[in-house]
């Protein structure tokens, strides 16, 4: 019984992180019709910044004090700031061009950001495990489970709720959805589309950065983590529907469950099953479970 609970919690942990990454990717696609190949690198960037800040905050100490946990969102804000700079400088000149070029420029950005992180933080992994160990663990039946993982799940759920409220219950959300549905019409009605694009891109990057920030105490920051995460985020958004936040949530939960089951029962083909799942959904419902064509 308690092993099932542990597996379920692991699946949820994974789903929370995947939702944050894929939700950002989907939001950006939904509003701007751009598939950002460098999105995974923003997730990695968030992880690195948080790990670096925690390392600085920790100094020589080995025990994490309470205020160190307040450093957790630093990576998310750093990723958001990076996004706010990148959109007007690199992406804006390309909206009128064919989408091949948009994919290519984000691929170029992926290569650049990968090395920027190597330049800033060196080739070795960065850890922030003091935060992970600082919370200890709790017992579920006869199993021991790290408390920090539960924190990540709560943050993921809270982020999903906040995002929902933001998009469906605020003035900004209305403008965002209007721009997403019909950019020209929104512009004709007086919406400053350029501003909406910057805001949407920044918000998407913030989510990616937040994912990196919350997972880094558990997993550490390594080079290449962004590229791996991007493909899984693709799987999530393809299953749920490109541009749909609810879809990203469903996709993230499905990927989380399949991945946890895969690691337990069929480790050799775990990744292949995930990619095949995405391909299958694309074939049956090209727009994804909740997407619009």
């Amino acid at each position: 019984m308690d092993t099932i609970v542990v597996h379920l919690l692991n699946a949820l942990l994974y789903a929370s992180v995947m939702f944050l990454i894929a939700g950002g990717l989907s939001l950006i696609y939904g509003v701007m019709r751009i598939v950002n190949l460098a999105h995974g690198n923003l997730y990695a960037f968030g992880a690195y910044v948080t790990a670096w800040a925690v390392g600085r905050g920790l100094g020589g100490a080995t025990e994490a004090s309470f205020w160190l946990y307040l450093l957790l969102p630093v990576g998310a804000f750093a990723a958001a700031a990076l996004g706010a700079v990148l959109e007007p400088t690199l992406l804006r000149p390309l909206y009128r061009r064919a989408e091949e070029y948009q994919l290519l420029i984000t691929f170029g950005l992926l290569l650049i950001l990968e090395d920027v992180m190597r330049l800033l933080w060196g080739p070795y992994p960065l850890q922030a495990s003091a935060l992970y160990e600082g919370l200890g663990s709790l017992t579920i039946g006869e199993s021991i489970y790290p408390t920090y993982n539960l924190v990540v799940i709560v943050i993921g759920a809270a982020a999903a709720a906040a995002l929902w409220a933001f998009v469906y219950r605020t003035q900004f959300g209305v403008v965002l959805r209007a721009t997403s549905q019909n950019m020209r019409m929104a512009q004709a009605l007086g919406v400053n589309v350029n501003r909406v694009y910057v805001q949407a891109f920044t918000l998407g990057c913030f989510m990616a950065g937040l994912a990196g920030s919350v997972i880094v105490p558990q997993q550490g920051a390594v080079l290449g983590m962004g590229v791996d995460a991007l493909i899984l985020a693709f799987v999530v958004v393809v299953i749920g529907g490109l541009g749909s936040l609810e879809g990203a949530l469903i996709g993230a939960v499905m990927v989380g469950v399949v991945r946890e089951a895969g690691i337990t029962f069929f480790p050799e083909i775990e990744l292949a099953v995930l990619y095949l799942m995405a391909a299958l959904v694309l074939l049956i419902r090209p727009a994804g479970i909740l997407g619009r064509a």
Partner: protein
Amino acid sequence: MSASTAPPRRVLAWSAPALLLLIALPFVVPPYQTVLLSYGLVFAIAALGFNLLLGYTGLLSFGHSAYFGTGAYAVAFIVKYLKLESMEAFLLGGILASGAVAALFGLLCVRYTKIFFGILTLALSQVLWSLAFKFFWVTGGSDGLRVPTPTLLGGTVRAGGDKFEFLSHRYYFYVLAVFVICTAVMWVIVHSPFGKALQAIRDNETRAEFVGVQVWRYRWVAFLISGMFTGLAGALWVPLNGLTTPDILHWTFSGKMVFFTVLGGFQTFFGPIVGAILYNYLETYAVGNTVYWQMVLGIVLVVLVLALPAGVVGTIRRLVLRPAKVA
């Protein structure tokens, strides 16, 4: 926006000297340069195949590593299980295996265009990558599989003692010959009625369908040919590298293929060839001179997209042709 329609005479006027230069080069430059050029020519064959989809059919694949890798792994399996070492067997195996994979993947992918096509090709190529990565008892996992030096032309040309001498001389000419054949075949394909139909589909799918072109079937055949060219390149690549690893199945390798095609210019026939050779030099020197080579490549790509979207060949062509039009 039309692809190269340069008359044959003008193409011959500069491609013949270029070919002579490629033949003469091994006698002049150091062997290392020849091997480097072999890599470039191999990538050029892949780029030719890739551009049949991007430049002529208007489909951007982000999963062509699947066919390159299938070609390479087919060779490794031929060595491992059939104990053959004839290059012709390698090429045949590479083409057949990648053709089979492309035929299957193509059936699934050609129903879509634009971003969905890109993502679907990417997801399918990642399936192969994860299989090669995880089934280490078959594929060697991340260590990959070794491939010995092959014998050429039905066993009549052998490697002898010095492997490097073989690669920089006999194997170079072998690659060059295959490259010339591939270029000629692709030239015929894109200038045939079939090639014209593909361009019609690219420019206006609805109209093409209206005049009786069966869009999905043409796209599928283009996909198949494209995959086979890329698979052939993969098979030629393995003996050069001596080893095949899952890296060449990973989607970032597909990204490189897109990169060098755009670098040369995907709206011209010869652009991808020039782009592949240039890219190979660029990457080799960037890797050799700095650990931040990815950043160098990324900056080149960003500048290229922002400033020279027509690519190297496309830009030169425009510069050369513009005065002619005025006169």
